[in-house]
Structures are given as C-alpha cells and as structure tokens.
C-alpha cells in the first residue's frame, strides 16, 4: 500500500463516502476524503493522489468545474479523474469527458465494475508507478 499516493474521494454524502472508502481500503488502497471542492483543492496542495474519484453533484463548486480546474493546473493535470454520478442522464458521460474526466461511473455502484475501471485507469496513467497497485488483490493479475 502506497500511502504517498492515495486515492482522493470527493463526495458530499457521508454514507457514500463511507461505502467507497470501505470498498477501496478492503482492496488495499489508501483513501483520503473530502466533502466538497474547496476541501479537495486544499488537500491537493499537500497530497499527490494516484486517482481522484469525484461526485459530479457537489455543493458550491460542482464536480465538472473542479475537474477543469485540476486539469488546467500543470502540477495536477496528470492525475486521472473518474466521475461518479447518481444522476445518469443522456449526455452526462459526454459532458464529463469534455470536462476532462478520464472515466465515468454511475451510481448505484457495481463493485466489480468499479474496481476494474479504477485499476485500469491507475494502471494506464502516466502519473504514478504501476507498483502502487497491491498484488494481493483477489488473486487477479494486473
């Protein structure tokens, strides 16, 4: 487990946050959380996450705006961002891609699909070394 490059989860719903945190830590990931964009941005000043999981519907600055902000910052632009949304309407996926998201997951979360997506993204990202992914992982090779 690489505590230097945790996954940053941003969601204003505490129970949701808990669910994702539990899922990820059970799979061996280090997790940091934030409940809104401002908190996330201030966290990003001190941590270097391997992935950002972001609920699109955030109070205050919404998820897509935050995505654009992060992608516009050269120090953070390489961090992969996966959008989480509970409001799956036509065109949502499009919008997230346009804003710069590298992936899209809709709620309710299918745990398998969720894990596959984030591992793929972390693995293919140029930001962190592949050794971040723990090998003892449900027996699956990565």
């Amino acid at each position, binding site marked *: 487990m690489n505590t230097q490059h945790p996954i940053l989860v941003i969601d*204003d*719903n*505490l*129970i*949701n946050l*808990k*669910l*994702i945190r*539990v*899922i990820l830590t*059970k799979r061996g990931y280090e997790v940091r959380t934030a*409940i*809104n964009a401002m908190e996330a941005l201030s966290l990003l000043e001190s941590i270097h996450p391997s992935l950002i999981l972001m609920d699109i*519907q955030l*109070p*205050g600055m919404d998820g897509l705006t935050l995505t654009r902000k992060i992608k516009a910052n050269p120090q953070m632009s390489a961090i992969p961002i996966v959008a989480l949304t*509970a*409001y*799956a309407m036509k065109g949502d996926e499009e919008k997230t891609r346009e804003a710069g998201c590298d992936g899209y997951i809709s*709620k*309710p*979360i*299918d*745990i398998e699909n969720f894990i596959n997506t984030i591992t793929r993204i972390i693995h293919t990202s140029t930001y962190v070394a592949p050794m971040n992914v723990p090998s003892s992982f449900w027996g699956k090779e990565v």
Partner: protein
Amino acid sequence: MNVGINAIDLINGRGTSEKRGVFMNRSSNMQRAKNEEEYIQLPLSEYKRLMALEEELRVTTHRERERMSQFEAIFETMADAVVVYQVDGRPSMFNRATREMLMLDAVPTYDQNLQSQRRLASYTIHDEHGQMLAEEDLPSAHVLRGETFKGSTAVDVIFNLPDGSIRQASISGAPIYRDGKVTGGVTISHDVTERRRLEKRTHESLQSLMELAASIVAMPRNDEQREEKLFNFSQVIGEKIIELTRRVLGCTRVGFSEVDPETYLLKPIAITGFAPDVQKLLFDNLDQVSLASYYSDASVFERLKANEIVLLEPSQKMSVSNLTHIECVHTLIAPICSEGNLIGVLFADFANSEHFYTSEEISLIRAMTRISTLAYERERKQAELAQAMLELHDLNEQLVTMSKAQTNFFAIISHEFRNTLSCISGFSEMINEGYEQLSADEVREFATDIANETYRLDRLITEVLDLERMKSGHMTIHRAPLDLNALMTQIIGRVASSTPTHHFHSELQALPVIEADADRITQVLMNLLSNAIKYSPDGGTIHVRSINDGERILIQVRDCGIGIPQEALETIFQPYNRFDSERTRRINGTGLGLPIVREIVELHGGKVWAESEVDQGSTFNVTLPLPTPL
C-alpha cells in the same frame, strides 16, 4: 267730307268726335303743333283708319309702358343682384339688390348713373381663394365673349368693398344676342356670403375635431412613458380642447378640468383667458372644491351628472373658494362622462360679454366632449393593458422559475434516491461477496448502514409524495395516543448513532400523552434534526428540548451552525425555496422538508417557525396544542 282736327288734341290723346281726319306726323311736328293749329283735309274713311291706328298705337304704347313697369319691378325686387353690361364691358343697368350687396348709394333705379357705374367698375373682385381676377376673367368679360354659365358652372367671387368688408357671391351669366351678334351681357349674383361663412365654420369645426381625434391617436405609446404616467389623458386632450374652443368658437375664457368620479373634486388641467393671478388661484384652490358646491344653483350639478350641457344664467356664480367667485354672463358648462360617471368638465364663455350659442356651436362642444370620453376610455384601456402585460410578464417569470425549480427538483430527487440506493446496494454487495474479509462487527455495522439508508429512502419517497398531496390538498393525519418524549428519544438515538460528526443533547420536560400521528411527527423530527446536522457542517452540538408551559407544548431543535438570514426565515418554509447563499450551497438536500413540516404541524393545530442569527445557529420551534381535558 273734310274734318278739321285740333293737332294738339290728337297728340294729347283726347279724342275729338267731329274733328277727326287730321293726320300729323307727331314726331316731326310736335313742336309746331303745340303752337299752331293746323288743319288737313282728309276723307272720312282715311280719318277713321288713322284714328284706329292711333288707338292701336296708344294701346300698344300703354301696354309697353306697363310691361316696362313690370319689368322694372321685377328687376328691382329681385333678390339677386343683376347687372347688364354693354358690349364695351361697362355696366348699363343694375338693380337695387346690386346696390345693396355692394353698398352703392341709393340712387333711383337703373339710371345710367355714371358715378355708380364707375364705383361698380372699380370694386376689386377676387376669386374664392382670394386671388384678384384679371380683366379677362371677370364674369362680365366671360359673358361678353358669348359664354353662358349657371348652376354647376356658376362662378364664386369675392367682392372687396370700399369699407373693407367682403361679399361672396355665386354668379351666373349669359350674353345678350341680337341678330346673331353679342350686344351685351347679364350677370346674376347670388349673395352667398353668409352661407360660405357658415360652411367655413363647419369646415373648421370638423377639422378641429379631426385634429383632436388625430392627436389622441398619436398620443405616445412609448412603454417608458407609460410606466411613468400610467394615466394622463387630460394634459394633452385638455390643452387641445381649450385651444380649439377658443379658436373655433371664439370663446375668451376656457377651462378644462378632470373630476373625481367619487368625490367630485375638481382637478384643473388647463385654463385660459383669466388674469394670471386668478388663473393661479384657480389652479391652487380648485382641487379642494367639489363640483357639487361649485355652482350656486344646485341643479347645475345634477344636470351635469346627467350628461347635460348647461348654460349658466348671468345670475349664477362659480365659487372657487370662500372668498372668490367667478362671475358668469353666458357660460357654457359641458360634462365629460364615461360609463355613467362624470369624469371631467369643460367651461367656456366670452368673459363678461353676452353670447347666444347656436346649435352648431353646442354640437361642436358636444362632439369635443365625446372625443374626450373616447380618449379617456382609450387611455384607461391602455393602462389596464399595460398593467395586464406587466402581470403577465411577472407570471411568466414565475412560471419559468417554477419550471426551472421543478427540473432542478427532479434532478435533486434522482440524485438523492440514487445515492441512497447506491449505499444500500454497495454495502449489501460487500456483505454478500466479501464475507470472509469482513469482521462480524463490520457486518453488523454495514447492516445498520443499509437499514438507515433504507429508512432514508423511505423518508425521501414519503416527502415527495407528501409534497404532491400537499399541493393538491390531500394530506391527512391519523391521530392516536402518542408519547411524544418517548418518540423523540427514540429518534434522537437513531440519528445520533448514524451521525458521528455531531453531539446530541436533549432536555425533555414531562409531557402528557397527546393525540397525534406518530409517523408524521416522526417525519417532522427527522427533518428538523437532519436540517440541524446539515446546517452545522463543522459538527457541534444539537440541542433538543420539549417544554410544557401549561398553554401548549413547545419543541425546540437548536444547532450552532451557519444560521439563516432574517429575510429567509419565512421563505424556507416554502416549497423548492431552500435559501440560497454561498454557505448553503455547500449543503444539499431536497428542499422539501420544511414545507411538509409546516403542513403537518398545522394539521395538528400547531405552529412552526425559525429563529436564527447568521453564524450563531438556528432554533426551530414547534408548538402543539395540549390535549383538552375531557
């Protein structure tokens, strides 16, 4: 046999019985015959023939003379002016009507009075537009050229008389022929001065009315001006009317005033013809004067109300104030009515002069007041229209806002539902598939989370349904005995266990059992508690109190969070109206809770309100009535 005739007798027409037979050439020998007696011998048959001829001559002459007198009489008594022209263009005869029309001296009939002729010839004649006629265009010239004109081809001319006045005449004419040649001409002039004057006045009146109507039609429709003076027909109309009254009727004093249809107070709009200080006095004081007391004769007011034009008698006065009265000689007061109400009044007179108003003048005034009525009604309609447009615009905006709110609402609802479902399915899946990896405590923990989320989802669904029911007025409560404190304790416990971020403190006084709907009260409490949590995002303590002050039950939920601004304390109880501020944007939620809370509380006979100070926290108060003793 020869008979001697006294020539003198013959000339003088005195028939002689015996002395006939003398034939004289009267003309050549008249002079001589007076002095001499000449006798000519004639045979009797000749003499008789001569006598018969003489008689014939006498009769014919007499007849001629009579005819001439008749002709003279006709010529002189003709109403129209007749002038007979010689071929050189000079008038040879003209009748009395000509003299009267052109104000020539009274000279015996149709003598060739050179003086009058010259005067006649020296009058300047103009066409009906005021252009002086050239020699060859004079009617006399036309007839002498052989032209006949009458009826539709009659010519309109204006004579300028020496005293400066004018006469307008319609002239027909014809040439006089003898042996196929023009030997003279006749013109007959019909004096149309008065008629033309009336026509002109009528034309002017019509034009003024049309001008007035046009100015109404052209009145500003600019929306900006509309907003400033939603209702000001009077200024434009008033000034126009008094100007027209002055110009066309010739009135020296004219005033136009609005009248309040209920109080009958006057509001002068335009006044002209008074001395400046009087005018100022009128403007300053009239708006305290009621039309009812304005005229010394009370019947005037009644008649004005009945839309009757009133002519004030000289004895009547108009009272402007206790000290001032306006003397009236022949003053016309015309009411302006709309839909049976008196809305304005027009006053006109000739100051202290008498004036006898003709029916045309009254008609003109009447027409102008009718136009005023139309203008007033049009203005009012336009004002109403503008108002309606504004209201429509507002409604439209409201509709748009509501529509947006509804869309937003659905988005929020889906979001909330899916979030909750996500947790339920997520934790379920975790338990299901990761059983070996989870400790027993974790399993219990996740099961509790699932249960809580289920409740939450149920609450959400209920809220949405309630809102619908509330909107259509169908929400009902089912009362049953309820231990309020027990319920509160239970709910607080549940909330506290799933909210590690906050502290919960309760102070519950002893409460009697009340008749209430437990589910609904639960809804209220859950809502207030979750709000308290949401609106104090930095954690802290939430205080819950129940108080019995003998008159009613008071429940208070207090947080130390971000608070609510004064102006929003009411609006937060309105659906879709979660107060929006920088801070509350951090907090999500359906915005449904409080309206439903209010509905439930009020259905129970209670009240709910909020007290708050920004940054200090909020206190939500709910009162419920104490059970009435049986």
